[in-house]
């Protein structure tokens, strides 16, 4: 692979995995300083992605492909366009900062190496998701993010809450992933290609396909679970059990945005239909409101941020769903802005937690003088989040209002957006003002500014939010508009301005948002109490539902297994024979192929006689009351069978049958008479009736099947061959023996192997003595 150009991107994809392998080693020797060294890898990847920006702004796209599983059309292909490159930039860029931050945050932690390892694995997977062109490759990376986030969320694994959150994330996002897999494969078959870049051009075929609804439902199941859309939103706040660097990374630019990415990616292929334009905005809007309302309820700063993330994701899904170009442009800018301010705010909260020892809203205050740099970062980011000029968040809000206002059903979506944004404004204010301003509160730890590792990330991202806001025109041209074009599938380049050039509805909406936001902020404490009260009254949520579902499934599984696997051998046998009877009769009934009851005429009397003896023998055995009688009677039918063999030209068989039958009876008698057994059958008469009918049914079925076969003409080619060559080539006059040792000698080889192993197995049964009961539990299975 070359070091420059499109192919070099494969190195950028490989980089994080290399870093993951290096982390434990470096962390062992360099401790937290290892993160400086390791951060170089994502930084290099960032530069690599950056090199594509001018080309993409000029309307180019890039594609590179390696063979992976050609048998099944799975390629290791990457597709770089406006959409994927922005995501890649965010993932690698913020990833670099998070790497540094992790070093500071987990300084001195004994598992720092493992942590960085998981983080890089996640980063690699996430880069793969956004860059993969092949839908199967995309899915592989998609599930990898689920698995690695499982490890990251559960990092603090000795706490039950962490484990629960990790499993929850794995089950919800992994489960959604399975639906996505089916959806993507269906789309691939319908669209005629497994490459996303080609699939995007067959949007019309997909939208008109009879499978469109199925594809749509499956794909949005994947996207909604990953991006925490209502009612799957609950795993995201729980994932806050993870160390803060994880939250800052997963919930700003990466994991949770994967679903949004997917929807944006599929917009040209699946978007624009009524279904798309209804379901997405509705669920997005609901998620927006649920997220903000639940956010107000929280006092834990990290949880406040988590719920606003949920809300922001809802907003993004809603905007994408409208399929309106301006709204999508709004989504793009908002997504970009959100990645910057949310990443920064999470790091700020982490730093506060790290330095002050708490992140409870009511236990912190007046930290600005103690932690000025962090404070500045917090204020800048919060301004962006609140959507105030001159930060990029403001631009985002202007454009998105413009979009919803003009979209189909725009009024409703605008309403959702207004309410959500106002609450978001209030929450942004809370996060920035409460901890840093106002009167000083005594915190568990004496707070002061942390090391550069701790503030570098947040201040960088915060300043970036300001810079991109100030230079929005060129940022728009270079980065945001190409991304919008990629989502729309058509070129889109509308000039962006920091300040509106004319008085638009968007500006009024913006002002209304601020006004409403301030009111909410003022009554925040009261609102919190009210919401808490309402939630208490409801007393149930999807989070609790998850536990109940799992518990229910496990309990149901237990009952089901115990019902099927009763442990009663008698039931097993009955079930088995019922199935056998079923299989015997169903083909006959369905094909109507019953045998003719004929052909008794040509029999001699003694043949009837022998058959009768055999039947009597069996009947006697079945009804025998005592074992010994049964065993002796067993011989009768055996000898009758031997006689039949003799009468029908099989002396070898007959002799063998005589010998074997005698030996069987002798051994049976030898073994069984030594046991002190009760003679009774011990079956109730009802059970006997059932067993008798079942046995007769099976017997009759086999009889009829055999009859219908022997009434057909027979093809004797094989035996004619054996007869012809038995003496001439194989030098034997006893054809049966020649078959045994020559024509079909391998059967005999297998047969004597069975005999030999039987001998050994019986020896093992008799000679090996079990160990004494006391230690058998631990001894069994060393």
């Amino acid at each position: 692979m070359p070091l420059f150009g499109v192919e070099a991107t494969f190195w950028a994809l490989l980089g994080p995995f290399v870093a993951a392998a290096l982390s434990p080693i470096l962390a062992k020797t360099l401790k937290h300083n290892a993160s400086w060294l390791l951060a170089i890898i994502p930084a290099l990847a960032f530069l690599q992605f950056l090199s594509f920006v001018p080309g993409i702004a000029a309307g180019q796209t890039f594609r590179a492909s390696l063979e992976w599983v050609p048998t099944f059309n799975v390629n290791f292909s990457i597709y770089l366009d406006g959409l994927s490159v922005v995501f890649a930039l965010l993932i690698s860029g913020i990833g670099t900062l998070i790497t540094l931050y992790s070093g500071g945050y987990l300084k001195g932690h004994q598992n720092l190496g493992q942590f960085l390892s998981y983080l890089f694995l996640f980063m690699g997977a996430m880069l793969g998701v956004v860059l993969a062109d092949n839908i199967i490759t995309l899915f592989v990376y998609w599930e990898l993010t689920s698995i690695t986030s499982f490890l990251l969320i559960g990092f603090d694994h000795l706490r039950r809450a962490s484990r629960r959150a990790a499993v929850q994330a794995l089950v919800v996002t992994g489960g959604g992933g399975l639906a996505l897999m089916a959806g993507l494969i269906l789309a691939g078959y319908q669209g005629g290609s497994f490459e996303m870049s080609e699939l995007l051009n067959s949007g019309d075929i997909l939208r008109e396909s009879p499978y469109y609804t199925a594809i749509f439902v499956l794909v949005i199941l994947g996207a909604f679970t990953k991006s925490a859309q209502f009612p799957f939103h609950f795993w995201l706040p729980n994932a806050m059990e993870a160390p803060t660097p994880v939250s800052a990374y997963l919930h700003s630019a990466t994991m949770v945005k994967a679903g949004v990415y997917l929807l944006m990616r599929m917009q040209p292929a699946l978007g624009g239909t009524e279904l798309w334009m209804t379901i997405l905005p509705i669920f997005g809007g609901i998620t927006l409101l649920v997220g903000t309302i639940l956010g107000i309820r929280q006092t834990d700063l990290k949880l406040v941020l988590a719920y606003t993330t949920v809300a922001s994701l809802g907003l993004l899904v809603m905007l994408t769903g409208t399929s309106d170009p301006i709204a999508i442009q709004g989504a793009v800018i908002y997504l970009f802005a959100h990645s910057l301010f949310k990443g920064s705010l999470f790091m700020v909260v982490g730093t506060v937690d790290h330095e002050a020892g708490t992140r409870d809203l009511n236990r912190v205050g007046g930290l600005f003088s103690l932690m000025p740099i962090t404070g500045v970062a917090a204020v800048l980011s919060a301004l962006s989040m609140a959507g105030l000029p001159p930060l990029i968040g403001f631009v985002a809000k202007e454009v998105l209002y413009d979009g919803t206002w003009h979209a189909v059903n725009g009024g409703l979506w605008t309403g959702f957006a207004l309410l959500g944004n106002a609450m978001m404004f209030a929450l942004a204010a809370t996060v920035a003002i409460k901890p840093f301003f106002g009167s000083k509160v005594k915190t568990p730890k004496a707070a002061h500014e942390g090391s550069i590792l701790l503030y570098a990330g947040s201040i960088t991202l915060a300043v970036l939010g300001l810079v991109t806001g100030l230079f929005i025109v060129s940022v728009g041209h270079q980065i945001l508009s190409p991304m919008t074009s990629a989502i729309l599938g058509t070129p889109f380049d509308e000039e962006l301005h920091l300040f509106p050039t004319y008085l638009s509805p968007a500006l009024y909406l913006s002002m209304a948002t601020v006004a409403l936001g301030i009111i909410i902020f003022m009554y925040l404490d009261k609102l919190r109490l009210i919401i808490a009260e309402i939630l208490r009254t409801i007393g149930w949520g999807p989070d609790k539902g998850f536990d109940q579902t799992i518990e229910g499934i496990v309990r149901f599984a237990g009952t089901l297994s115990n019902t099927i696997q009763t442990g009663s051998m008698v039931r097993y046998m009955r079930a088995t024979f019922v199935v056998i009877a079923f299989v015997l009769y169903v083909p006959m009934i369905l094909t109507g192929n019953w045998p003719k009851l004929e052909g008794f005429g040509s029999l001699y009397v003694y043949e009837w006689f022998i058959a009768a003896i055999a039947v009597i023998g069996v009947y006697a055995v079945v009804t025998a009351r005592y074992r010994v009688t049964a065993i002796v009677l067993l011989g009768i039918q055996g000898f009758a069978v031997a006689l039949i063999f003799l009468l029908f030209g099989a002396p070898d068989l007959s002799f063998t049958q005589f010998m074997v039958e005698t030996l069987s009876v002798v051994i049976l008698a030898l073994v069984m008479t030594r046991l002190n057994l009760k003679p009774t059958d011990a079956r109730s008469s009802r059970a006997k009736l059932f067993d008798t009918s079942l046995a007769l049914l099976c017997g009759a079925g086999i009889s009829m099947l055999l009859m219908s076969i022997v009434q057909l003409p027979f093809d004797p080619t094989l035996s004619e061959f054996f007869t012809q060559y038995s003496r001439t080539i194989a030098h034997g006059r006893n054809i049966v023996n020649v078959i045994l040792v020559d024509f079909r000698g391998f059967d005999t080889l297998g047969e004597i192997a069975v005999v030999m192993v039987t001998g050994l197995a019986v020896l093992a049964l008799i000679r090996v003595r079990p160990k004494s009961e006391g230690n058998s539990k631990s001894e069994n299975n060393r």
Partner: protein
Amino acid sequence: MAVTQTTVDTAAAMVTEAVPLADWLLVAPVLLTMAGGATAIIFRKKSFVQPWIAIATISLVILSNIGLLNHVLTNGVVTMVMGSWLPPFGIAFTADPLGALLALTASIATLCVAIFAINSIAENERRYGFYPFLLMLLCGVSGSFLTGDVFNLYVWFEVLLISSFGMQILGNEKIQIDGAVKYAVLNLIATTLLLTTTGLLYGLVGTLNMADIAGKIKALDSSGPVLAIAALYFLAFAMKAAAFPVNFWLPASYHTPRLVVAAIFAGLLTKVGVYALLRVMVLLMPEGRDWLASLIGLVAIATMLTGSLGALAQTDIRRLMGYLVIAGIGAMLAGIAVGNEVAISGAIFYAMHSVLIMTALYLLVAFMFQMSGTFSLRDIGGLYIRTPLGAAIGLVLLLAVAGLPPFTGFWAKLLLVAGALEADRGWVAAGVLVSGLLTTIAIGRLWIFAFWRGGNEHTMDGIQALPIAGSSDASEISWSIWLPLLALTALIVLIGVMPEALMSISDNGARTLLDPTEYIRSVFGGIR
């Protein structure tokens, strides 16, 4: 002798041209294991040489199987007729990619188990036949995979069955005997059904050679008996493969023998049933398969769901793994139910995956037992802290069995789902996916309980686990566990990351099954 010598046209009855030596690779696994098994019995009192006889034999078998697979991939389906008798008169051994691939995988799993057994099977149990049983089991399994004759298939089934009986009871503890009764009786019914059906099939078509049957059965106009025989074969092999609702024997017995034994059982036994289903339902009786497709689909889904739900319901890790075997069987049946190239190739890939993963999982159970001294999900815990490497192996294996990428199980599931969707059988795909989700929950729980949790289920939050009584340190775990466990895990990761080679073999195998011309041509050569 009084008779005058007659002239015989030998060429009309026998293969007369020289046979390439490479064709002997077809019978090598069977003959080697038989010779090895017999030798091990002769030396049974020298218990320290036993493992090495077995390991040497199995290594040779692996080499021979690699050669065979290579032979098949370069020259197409390979046939050798025993005793030079022209097919269909003698017994033919025929290796197609399916058979050769599974034979190789099976021998690899057996080698791992043979190594694991070095330090885990007591002297007395070695003397009474562990290694001979193991070798004869491999003999029966290899014979089943490679034979091209239905009656001969039955014989090899019996070889592997009696060997498995021997392994099952080794130790003679109460629980083993009880498990053995259920295992043995139910399996005997299955093989008897198999023999009955084979007898009926012979009565119907007058031949036993698979290629010959595949050709002749098409010519039969009477569909009734053919369908009945197809249904009976399906039932017989479904019992062997442990499909719902005839799989009672598996959960009743897999937790009872020695773990080594459970490992090889889980790896090989059910897969032989699946193999036979593929061979008989797809190659020999495609009409029967088409006719039964919906039923097989239902059975597959029921098997997958009862398997994965069963895994969720268990407290004993060994039983949990047993249910995972069942869930996997359901997935393979789903491939047979769908029956197109992608799905069949998925079933083949899954079978290969299942041999490796189930063996590895029981080795993992042994490892976990050594570390914690318990099989109960309630009592186990704290393994992550004590053995990060073990935890990583555990995670990889469990993710692989749940079908998550980038491990072997994922590719198998992918093919199955894609095949089902391509064939417009979305409900089968849904079954595979739902079962995958349930399995994910089950393995997620298992992993957090055993590894992440600090101690047993009563451990308080965040408190470092105290070592559980009877447990040992990771460094005390014998190399005879580490080596096979690491090797299998490495193989699973390697195939998961680079699946192309095996995908193309599976695909090749599926094509050979679906279009029997190559198989028939290989057996009959230029005769027909």
